[in-house]
């Protein structure tokens, strides 16, 4: 069994969204993903980190934690914020639902994460924070074995 792990903490600033994507992409590259798989992962990370900044901390200052684990040919990505939490997770995950329509949010964030990754779990508690766990199997690494 081949395992690897990384953890990164950064301030909830929007210019760290691209930083988070680049870090995960670089970490995932050891699985030799296709361009499509890499694009899926980067987009999903972008959604989760953006949610932490806009919804978790509501543009205030906080720390976003990004963890990634590679086990065999699966990458698991965890995005954690210690912000305000989600009151109704089921509603938040409905396609096109947004709690902030005035900010021109499309309400597609969770749908994108679900579509582009194989597996999505959301844990949240009001005023404690939110944890998003996503997994994706990178298929190309099977072919190489």
């Amino acid at each position, binding site marked *: 069994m081949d395992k690897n792990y990384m953890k990164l903490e950064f301030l909830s600033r*929007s*210019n760290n*969204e*691209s930083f988070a*994507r680049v870090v995960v992409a670089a970490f995932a590259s050891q699985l030799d993903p296709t361009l*499509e798989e890499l*694009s899926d992962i*980067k*987009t999903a990370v*972008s*959604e989760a980190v*953006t949610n932490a*900044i*806009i919804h978790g901390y509501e543009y205030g200052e906080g720390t976003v934690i990004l963890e990634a684990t590679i086990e065999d040919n699966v990458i698991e990505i965890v995005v954690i914020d210690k912000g305000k939490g989600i009151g109704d997770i089921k509603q938040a995950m409905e396609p096109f639902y947004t709690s902030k329509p005035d*900010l*021109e*949010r*499309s*309400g*597609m*964030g969770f*749908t*994108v994460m679900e*579509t582009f990754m194989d597996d999505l779990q959301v844990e949240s508690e009001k005023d404690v924070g939110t944890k998003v766990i996503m997994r994706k199997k990178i298929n190309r690494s099977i072919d190489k074995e």
Partner: protein
Amino acid sequence: MGFTLEVKKPNLIVHFYGELDHHITEKARLSIDQKYLENDIKNIILDLSQLTLMDSSGIGLIMGRYKNVISKNGKIALISSNVYIDRLIKMSGLLKIINVYSNVDQAITNLER
């Protein structure tokens, strides 16, 4: 900056570069809306052809500009040639209300009709 603005009346053309995320959309929204106030601009062409990544913030930006042009009887056109970005656009349902073209000239010709 992530984007440049070009005016070809009655069209405002926005060329995006690199990755379009929440960080860039916040800046782009202000610049586009300010430029759009100028006289004789009716339509907005969003050129996504040089993007390598776009997340749902980009979709929100397109939807917001759509609302603005409607109030001026204008139209939105998208330029896209990236399969990953096309996939997100399809998911969003935007294709029901906005046309996608393969280049700016094609978009301008169709907007004139």
